[in-house]
């Protein structure tokens, strides 16, 4: 009973915040609503006993990805008026994409794979069941190649991103810490012996 209440509260919050992401005018608010919708979907996953996925969602997407996202959105001077231009022009294309996505989702939901037997809820697991352990077991045995291919693709993406942004620029000023540490007192300081001023 209480699970149902929790589900509906957070499901409504997810839908409302996800809608707000695309409807609010301020880009920072939109990003914050995206954070909220990630968080509420994590709660829904938690109620499905997928605690590893739920916590990983909060840790990775809320804790790291969206922080960088908001960081960038705050720095950019986004011209909202220009972004809002051409709504009518792009409307047919947008509607087409929306219709295709709706069709795809419907075909998935109504397919045989995801159909739920009427009246049979999945049974709750016993308290000593570890979702993390089960996930790790599957990921590193049955799906180890898919997992490692994904890891390699990510590595390639990281290297590509770094090599795209790394460029030597003239006149860039930067410090070399090893040089800074190597500095000795004698290199910078000259002590001049002088006779003290005579008393008059």
């Amino acid at each position, binding site marked *: 009973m209480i699970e149902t209440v929790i589900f509906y509260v957070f499901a409504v919050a997810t839908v409302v915040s996800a809608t707000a992401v695309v409807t609010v005018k301020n880009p920072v608010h939109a990003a914050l609503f995206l954070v909220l919708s990630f968080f509420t979907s994590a709660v829904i996953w938690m109620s499905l006993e997928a605690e*590893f996925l739920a916590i990983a969602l909060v*840790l990775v997407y*809320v*804790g790291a990805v969206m922080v960088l996202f908001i960081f960038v959105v705050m720095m950019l001077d986004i011209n909202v008026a220009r972004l809002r231009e051409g709504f009518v022009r792009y409307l047919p294309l947008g509607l087409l994409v929306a219709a295709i996505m709706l069709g795809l989702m419907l075909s998935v939901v109504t397919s045989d794979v995801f159909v739920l037997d009427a009246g049979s809820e999945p049974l709750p697991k016993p308290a000593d069941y570890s979702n993390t352990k089960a996930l790790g077991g599957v990921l590193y045995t049955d799906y180890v190649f898919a997992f490692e291919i994904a890891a390699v693709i990510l590595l390639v993406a990281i290297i590509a991103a770094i090599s795209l942004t790394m460029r030597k620029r003239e006149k860039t000023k930067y410090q070399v810490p090893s040089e800074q540490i190597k500095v000795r007192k004698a290199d910078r300081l000259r002590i001049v012996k002088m006779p003290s001023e005579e008393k008059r």
Partner: protein
Amino acid sequence: MTETLSSIDAWLSQFVHEYLLFTVYSGLKALLILMPLFIVVAYYTLAERKVIGYMQIRKGPNRVGPKGLFQPFADMFKLMFKEIIIPTNSNKYLFIIAPVITFAPAMAAWAVIPFNDTLVFSNINAGLLYILAMTSIGVYGVIIAGWASNSKYALLGAMRSAAQIVAYEIAMGFALVGVLMVGGSLNLGEIVNRQAGGIGHWFFIPLLPLFFVYLISGVAETNRAPFDVAEGESEIVAGFHVEYSGMTFAVFFLAEYANMILIAMLCSLLFFGGWLSPVPDLLGDSIGWLFGKTAVFMLLFLWFRATFPRYRYDQIMRLGWKVLLPVTIFWLAVEGVAVYFKIGPWFV
């Protein structure tokens, strides 16, 4: 009619017995953890001023009550009665909500901290991950506060904080991966129990580099000196909370100190055997050990502040990405070898 009434009655009694009582019971348990925490935070602020005072050959606060012992209450009442000023053109809702967003995860993280074998609010399997997740949400308070204040200084503080926290969270996460490789579990209680058998079995010995990485990134994550560039009072006044006053400021303060205590306690749980005694043959395990070890790390935080000058921003980034991260990755590889060959007494 009577049937519907009786069914409503049955539903109500089930509701009261199963959910309401459970909620009240959990609430009381949470209070039993949080109330002492608030008192410790209050006296931690006094201890900070006293300790730094003595380190700088001053006396620190000594006017309110005997030896200044009532100073935290004086501070608290002052903050409670101060006016909360909301800057013009600031984003009002976000401005008010920011301290709450910092405060709530700082408190929520305490839910999975075990104080001894049985004394834990929620003994969940993925405890370590949960703590990482909760501490990573806290940065939103800082970012939102900085952005909503409509102030250049606050925004600069928020920017610095965001970059710093992302950098150090990775090193911190990798250090914790090392802990769970030795501990063989994400459950904090199990990790502590794996360290049973005296000081030689504690994890700080095989994980010494990771322990230092964790401690350093813990200091950085809590925005404490020498990593307090988000506040940086010499350049950007008070950074992200420059516009906050009264209780809104106090809530930020409370969250920061609660996080410091949390990091100190995690250091003692994950690397120093938590409530386990260093010499089990002579002295028994007790919660006192945990508090004693935590107190030492809490003192370290204050000691750092009195000793080190603040890092420059590029130095912080360099330390996080180029020093701490490679150290953790290297040590994870070493640990992998140790786990494979079952080098005792830790990797058995």
